[in-house]
Structures are given as C-alpha cells and as structure tokens.
C-alpha cells in the first residue's frame, strides 16, 4: 500500500494539549445516580415527543420520547425506574435557560428490555432497514454536533458517497473520550464503519486520527488486522487544531478542497465521529439504543481526571462527586472543550448526547478575561483562520451592526467557531464571541422578519375582508332599496307601507303585511325575553361570586 499524501489546511494552531491528564486510565463505568434528568432535545432538529406518563415504570432501553419529524431523534432509558416528573429543568446550554426534561428515578433493578432485534449479519439487511434502525436507536453525532445520523445517511439524491470518513482526530485540548474509545473499543468503531459502508454503498473508509494518539492508532490497526477489511485505511494525521473539523479533515486526507456553501456529501464524502460509528454498531448488531456515552471529566479543578461511561441524564454534579469531587480552588465548569465549549452556570445539568467533555478549571487556568483593547490590524486572526476568512473585517461589521455585509461579503456563516482568532488576538478581542452573536442575531432578525411578514399579510387580509363585507352589505341594501322603490311604484300609494318593512316581490300585499307584523311581534317578544334574562344573569353571577 502506498503512503497517503497528506495536505495541510491553511491556518490552524497548536494549543496546549492537556491530554495526558485524562487519557492514562481506562474508561470507568459510572454508577447509577439517584436521579436521571433526560432533556427532550439532545439533538439538532425538533424536540422529541414524550411517550411516557408521570408515575409510569420504564425498563432499560425503553423509548421515552419519539422523534418528531424528519430531523429529530428519539430518547431511551439508560436503566429501569419510574418517571417522577416531566418538567422544565436546567440543561447544558450557554443561555442557562431551562428546557423540558423527563425526570427518572432509577429503581436499582436495571431490568432491561430488548429494544430491537440484533442483526449480527448486517450485510444481509437492506440499507433502508439499517437506516431506520439508526434512526430508531436515537443515534446522533456524538462528536458534539448531535445531528441525527440517519438524516446524514439518507444522503443527497444523485450524489453517491464514495468515501466514509471516521473522525478520530479529537483535536480539541483536554478531550480524550474518543482516544480511549478507540483504544478500548476499536473493533466496534471499525464494524460501525463497515455498516456505514454497506448502507451508503461506499468503497473506502478513512479513519483519521491525530498522531498524538499512537495507542489509539495501534489499537485500530490491530483491530483492522483482525477484521481483514481492505476497504479501511487508518491514517495518522499531524496534530494541528482544528483538524477534526469536517472540511479540514477531508482536505488533510484527500486534498479535496470543498468550496464554501457546498456540503461535503455533494462531493461524495460523509464524515462520522468514531463514537457515532461505535453507537451505530451497537444499535445494529446488539440492538441497543443510545443510552450512554463516554465523557471526559478533566481539568485542574477535579480530583481525578479520567473518562467515564455515563448514563445519559446523569447530573454533572453526581458524576463529579463519583469521580472524587472538585479541587478546592475550582473556578469554572465548561461543557465541551476549551475552544468550542461554554461555561455552565450550574453543575446541576445532565450529561446529554452532546457531552463529550466536562472541563473543570482551577482559578489559575480560568483567569478573568483581560479587557479587550482596540484592534491593531496585525492580521494574526486571518493567518490562523482555517477557513481563510478575514476575522478582523467580520469583527468590524459585527460590531457596527452591519450584519448584511458580515453575511454576504465576509461569509460569516462559513465560520466554524473554532476560536483560533480569539486565542491568538494580542488585543484579547473575543472575536468568536462577536461571530456567535452576529450569527444568532441574524437568525433572530430573520425570524422577526418572517413574523412581521405574516402579521402584514393577516392585517391586509383582514382589511380586504372588512372592505368586502362592507361592499356586500351596501350592495344588498341598494338592491333592497331598488326593490322597495319598484314595489312602491307598482302598489297603490294609499296602502301605506311602513318605512322599515321588507317586501318579498311576487307575494300578495295583504299576506305580506300580515307576515311582517307577525315577524315583528315575534322579534319583539324574543328581545324582551333576552333582556329579562340578561338582567337576571349579572345578579346571579354577583350572587355566586360574592
């Protein structure tokens, strides 16, 4: 086999690794806590729809909530227990807002049910059924993006996938959950890759792993030897942040530069995180839904850094307590890595499918951000940008509130929020914060614009409706007046038609007169009755309310 030629993407940088704190010990199984809090939205797309009731007993692997729509994912129970509440709880989100969650009280019996039929011989199962299984098992991108995997597997019509990439780059500092997973469960990862190749009908599978993980590379190679699958290639890539970003990884491995505004699937590539591949393997071959994930608990703020196999819904506080607790000088708890993650307002948030890392930092590693100084136009951010954007220009536009320019001319939405620009800025300008702000602000404005367009439409419709009603009424009145006039002409002037009288043309005058008189009497009686009732009703109401 010839040596693969690797390519270097523009920009990038080398943050301090901090991998050795947590990658030396094997993955430990976290004990079942007294309470599980399972957010209904742990994925990109629509919030899952609850399928259980409060007080219901559920078994391990039972479905708690079903996918609501195409881009959505179901949720399953990590253990047996009773649903104690379905309510809003704190969730891991930068806003610190609450979101609907299912709260579960485990009963310690851990009774399981077989969620799906195991398909050990997945090669004989049709790709369609396999994709359905991936969807039903709640598999989402476990690298942190949590996009429903089944949607990715459906691909784009007309563009077949030729290469599957298994992303084991794990380029963020501190995080080692994929590293340990590849070392300990390399076989699952590769078999998951085989399922992906089968589903997509792809020819090659490249496994990209940064060369700071030699043990993981060795483990994958050993597993591949045992598997004997020539379609796979384990490729060690140079350690350079952010090599784990999808387009950057594709460029490193193949030299294919996928232009802006294009999806990688349009060029025949499909990337999945190694942990996602392992989850797909478990869903298909063992028939297990996603109910646990490996989480790196690390940083100078915890007593014993390491990797844990955690039931989804376990509170971060419970996990940290099990791992020996915090260091006394802990200052900050971050969800995700130091580059792409966000600080949590509380540790009472559950581990979700997105939780690849919980990073607790001691005061010395979490200094107060220095006040930003003016931009000196040094260009360091542009040099470091892996997407070849002009961060200083984007900053300028975002600051000035010129979002249209930031979006159209600066390609703001190409920004992968890797955080290099902020990290290298000598003026300590939080550039990536501006970009995150600008992106969400643009979405917000789009939503508002949509809403105001709807309001305008409804307002205009209402006005035309009122106008139409008015015209119809006028037309009707005009018609009646015309009839009346015609009648007056035809009748003898002495008959004395009352002013309010309505005539029906063609009927005899005497009958009409009588009918009108009767109708008027009836209306009067009804009106009086209603009046009496109305007078009685308020006094009754007062009586009951007093």
């Amino acid at each position, binding site marked *: 086999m010839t040596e693969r030629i690797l390519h270097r993407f523009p920009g990038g940088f080398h943050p301090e690794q901090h991998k050795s704190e947590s990658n030396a010990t094997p993955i430990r199984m976290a004990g079942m806590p007294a309470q599980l809090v399972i957010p209904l939205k742990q994925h990109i797309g629509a919030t899952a729809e609850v399928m259980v009731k409060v007080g219901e007993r559920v078994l391990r692997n039972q479905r708690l909530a079903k996918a609501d729509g195409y881009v959505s994912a179901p949720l399953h129970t990590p253990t047996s227990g009773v649903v104690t509440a379905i309510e809003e709880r704190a969730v891991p989100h930068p806003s610190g807002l609450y979101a609907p969650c299912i709260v579960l009280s485990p009963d310690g019996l851990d009774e399981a049910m077989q969620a799906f039929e195991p398909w050990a011989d997945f090669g004989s199962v049709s790709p369609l059924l396999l994709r359905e299984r991936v969807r039903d098992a709640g598999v989402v991108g476990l690298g942190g993006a949590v996009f429903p995997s089944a949607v990715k597997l459906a691909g784009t019509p007309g563009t077949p996938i030729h290469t599957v990439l298994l992303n084991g780059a794990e380029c963020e500092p501190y995080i080692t959950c994929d590293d340990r997973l590849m070392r300990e469960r390399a076989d699952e990862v590769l078999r998951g890759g085989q399922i992906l190749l089968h589903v997509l009908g792809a020819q090659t599978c490249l496994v990209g792993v940064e060369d700071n993980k030699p043990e993981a590379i060795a483990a994958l190679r050993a597993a591949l030897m045992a598997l004997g699958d020539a379609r796979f290639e384990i490729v060690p890539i140079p350690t350079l942040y952010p090599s784990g970003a999808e387009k950057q990884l594709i460029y490193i491995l193949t030299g294919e530069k996928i232009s802006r505004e294009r999806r990688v699937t349009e060029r025949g590539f499909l990337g999945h995180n190694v942990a996602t591949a392992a989850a797909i393997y478990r869903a298909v071959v063992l028939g297990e839904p996603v109910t646990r994930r490996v989480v790196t608990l690390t940083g100078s703020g915890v007593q014993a850094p390491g990797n844990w196999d955690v039931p989804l819904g376990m509170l971060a506080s419970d996990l940290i307590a099990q791992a020996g607790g915090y260091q006394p000088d802990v200052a900050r708890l971050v969800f995700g890595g130091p580059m792409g*993650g966000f600080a949590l307002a509380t540790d009472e948030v559950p581990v979700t499918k997105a939780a690849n890392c919980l990073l607790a930092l001691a005061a010395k590693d979490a200094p107060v951000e220095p006040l930003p100084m003016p931009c000196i136009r040094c260009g360091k951010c542009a040099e470091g940008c892996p997407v070849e954007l002009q961060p200083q220009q984007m900053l300028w536009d975002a600051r000035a509130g010129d979002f249209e320019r930031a979006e159209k001319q600066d390609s703001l939405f190409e920004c992968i929020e890797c955080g290099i620009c902020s990290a290298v800025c000598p003026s300590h300008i939080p550039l990536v*914060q*501006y970009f995150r702000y600008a992106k969400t602000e643009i979405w917000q404005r789009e939503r*508002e614009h949509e809403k*105001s367009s709807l309001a305008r439409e409804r*307002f*205009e419709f209402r006005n035309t409706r009122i106008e139409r009603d008015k015209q119809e009424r006028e037309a009707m009145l005009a018609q009646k007046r015309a009839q009346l006039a015609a009648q007056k002409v035809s009748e003898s002037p002495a008959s004395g038609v009352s002013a309010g009288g309505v005539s029906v043309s063609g009927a005899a005058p005497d009958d009409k007169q009588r009918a009108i008189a009767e109708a008027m009497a009836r209306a009067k009686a009804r009106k009086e009755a209603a009046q009496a009732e109305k007078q009685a009703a308020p006094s009754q109401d007062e009586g009951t309310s007093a």
Partner: protein
Amino acid sequence: MLSALLVFTLLALVLGLLLGYAGQAFKVEGDPLADKIDALLPQTQCGQCSYPGCRPYAEAIARGEADINQCPPGGEATIKALADLLGVEAKPLSAEHGVEKPKSVAWIDEQVCIGCTLCIQACPVDAILGAPKLMHTVIVDECTGCELCVAPCPVDCIYMLPLVPALEQWRWPSPEERLEIAETGRVGETL
C-alpha cells in the same frame, strides 16, 4: 447661429418626447419608498404612531408628513434602519408616542372571559379565536403584542405577558453586553 438654435430646439423636443414616453411606459405602480419603509416596520399594527397601521405610517413617512421616531414597538433598531434607508439622522424615540417595551403577547384568562367578541373585532391580525358567548383564546404565534385588545375587554381578562425566549430563539449576547453582565456579576460567560 440659426442652425445652432434649430439643432438645440430639435434636440430638446426629441429628448422631451423620449422622457415623456419613458415616464408613461416605465411607470411604477404604488409607492416603492413606502414599500421599503413598510418592510422595516414591525407590523404590530398597534397604531401607537397615530396612524391606523404600519402601512399608513409608512406612507406618511414617504410623503414626509411623519417623523421616523414614532414607532415604540420597533424601537431604536427600527429608527436606525429607517434613518439608514432615508439618509437622515437617527433620533431618540418620541416620548409622546410611547416607550419601548420588551416583546409581549396577549393572554386571555379563559375563566373570566364572557365571550363578548369585542377583542376579536379589535385584533388587527385576526389572532384571537372565539365565538359569541364562548371562550376566546389568543394564537400566540400570530399575536403581535399590539395591546389593542386590552382596552375593549369589558371584564379586563386580557393580560400582556412578556414573551419568554425558548432555547431555539436564544441568541448569544454581544461581547459588549457580556461585559455589562460581568460587571453586574451574573454568570454564564464562556471561555
């Protein structure tokens, strides 16, 4: 001398005819400026600007009869956008037309509602459902928060509730806002 006069008169005549024809042939229906202004207004249709709806206000601005700072629901952002569009200086919101309030939606206390339909008639965007003597309710997604339904209610059962942002609608605060948050001691900042 005479030929020069002749040439220029002829030229003026031809160009004048051309312009006159173009004016007729490429005539733009409606008022494009009013459309542009209308697109920037929040479409609450609340009438706080003293015009009966956003469109009439937009037309008044286009005619130069109304000022750009009369829209409280749009607030500073709308004034700024209008100033950019019209090439004039932005100014603070006119106090006589109201103050900028957080976004809210109407909510009907259904236990108290007597089903009088007055609020339905007041709603400019048909966002209230109900029938005579039957309970009424607000379609939250379509309510613009104009408050026009509050005053007509004979039993005062309509309340304006602030719109709580769901996670999907949350946006990152700008770093400048974040500095303020840091100074007031609230947590939730990122690394």
